[in-house]
């Protein structure tokens, strides 16, 4: 097998290293007698950078050497490889959201009174960030606590035209039963089709 060209070695090393590599380390890939000159390595790095002009990557010099990295113009898209799909929301968050939905406008203190436990700031923040909940005012009591309601985005997400489509509290039983009685809640147009197959499974 022919000895690989310096350019191939430098490129391979930078792509495989997983971090910056300095000139000395690149030179150390060769035994002394076959070692290229520093100038040759530097020139190779320049050639690579030129060749990458139209590519998704670039050669970058940083404190500890050179590295090849994803070009900034491509990075946002490539970063989606690591989109985090976190687990599920906690029960505390769902209960908080449910209380805002059913008892809006409501303050954090009122949610805490009903749940019998403190609501973490993180939960409120998450609900606000998700745009499911927003502040519509403040109750004029000491501390002027924020009043939360649900948003249109909340209704859209759960496929509701209005809060009225949520089952009344008095009816709340097993959610599965509710869905059977309110097919719209399951996201199916009520009279478009005969009962969906899994509805049948549920009915005795």
């Amino acid at each position, binding site marked *: 097998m022919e000895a690989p060209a310096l350019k191939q070695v430098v490129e391979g090393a930078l792509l495989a290293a997983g971090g910056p590599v300095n000139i000395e380390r690149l030179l150390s890939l060769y035994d002394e007698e076959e070692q290229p000159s520093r100038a040759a390595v530097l020139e190779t790095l320049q050639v690579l950078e030129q060749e990458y002009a139209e590519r998704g990557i670039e050669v970058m010099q940083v404190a500890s050497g050179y590295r090849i990295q*994803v070009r900034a113009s491509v990075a946002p898209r490539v970063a989606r490889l690591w989109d985090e799909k976190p687990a599920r929301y906690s*029960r505390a968050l769902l209960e908080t959201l449910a209380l805002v939905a059913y008892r809006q406008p409501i303050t954090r203190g009122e949610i805490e009174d009903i749940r019998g436990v403190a609501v973490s700031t993180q939960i409120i923040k*998450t609900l606000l960030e*998700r745009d499911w909940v927003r502040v519509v005012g*403040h109750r*004029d009591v000491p501390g002027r606590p924020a009043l939360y309601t649900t948003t249109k985005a909340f209704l859209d997400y759960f496929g509701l035209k209005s809060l009225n489509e949520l089952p009344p509290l008095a009816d709340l039983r097993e*959610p599965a039963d509710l869905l059977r009685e309110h097919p719209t809640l399951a996201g199916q147009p009520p009279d478009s089709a005969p009962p969906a197959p899994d509805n049948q499974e549920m009915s005795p």
Partner: protein
Amino acid sequence: MTADAEAASAEIAQHALVHGQPFVDWPQDLFIPPDALEVFLETFEGPLDLLLYLIRRQNLDILDIPIADITRQYMDYVELMKELRLDLAAEYLVMAALLCEIKSRMLLPRAAESEDEDEDPRAELVRRLLEYERFQQAAIALDERPRLERDWLQTHIEIPSGYLRRIPPQVELTDLLAAVRAVFERADLSSAHRVEQESLSLRERMGLVLERLQGRGFTPFSELFDASEGRPGVVVTFLAILELIKTSVLELVQTEPFAAIHVRARQAADEPAAA
């Protein structure tokens, strides 16, 4: 096996002592230096591997093992392992017993003259050797395949930081209903939080009224009503406003009798309207 190796083998013979006697009687092919003997014997992957080694060394056809010879050589090795106090696995002894049994059966006159069903006593052993040999070969072939880390290297470059997104989890409506049911069941247990039933359209309307008033000062009362909704809509809005006033969220102002009523979200005097 090279001449050098055989010479080395002869040399070890002078160094090894077994039972206090120079060990000269050991397998002819031990061409390894003394300090490697233990390692050599330990590299056998069990009795089948040792047998295959013996067969290959003599360039024998595996299908036609001279059982007496092989048995003798096998026993030599097993003895040697014992002498070296190698952790001799039971499998080796089981195999030794099997070889002896086959040998004895082969000494008996065979009733197989008439090609009856009597199997060659070696058949089962040969079958196992052949089967094992296939996988020995497969293992070698696998090892010779190019592979990552040795023959190829995985590339892995960084991306500039700050681009990672978090996808929020999915929630089903049933999750939400289960949550509200759970929370009210719990609340029901403590009488202090008896939850009265209220129509959700009223609650929704309370939110809408607040939304309208947000960021605004006094707003004419009448602006909060939408006549096109008809009577029920007007009633709901009215109830919503009353509820909000009752719970100190809104305040009503009428500057003089029969003047227009104005509404605004209550706020501390020194605080701007909620953004």
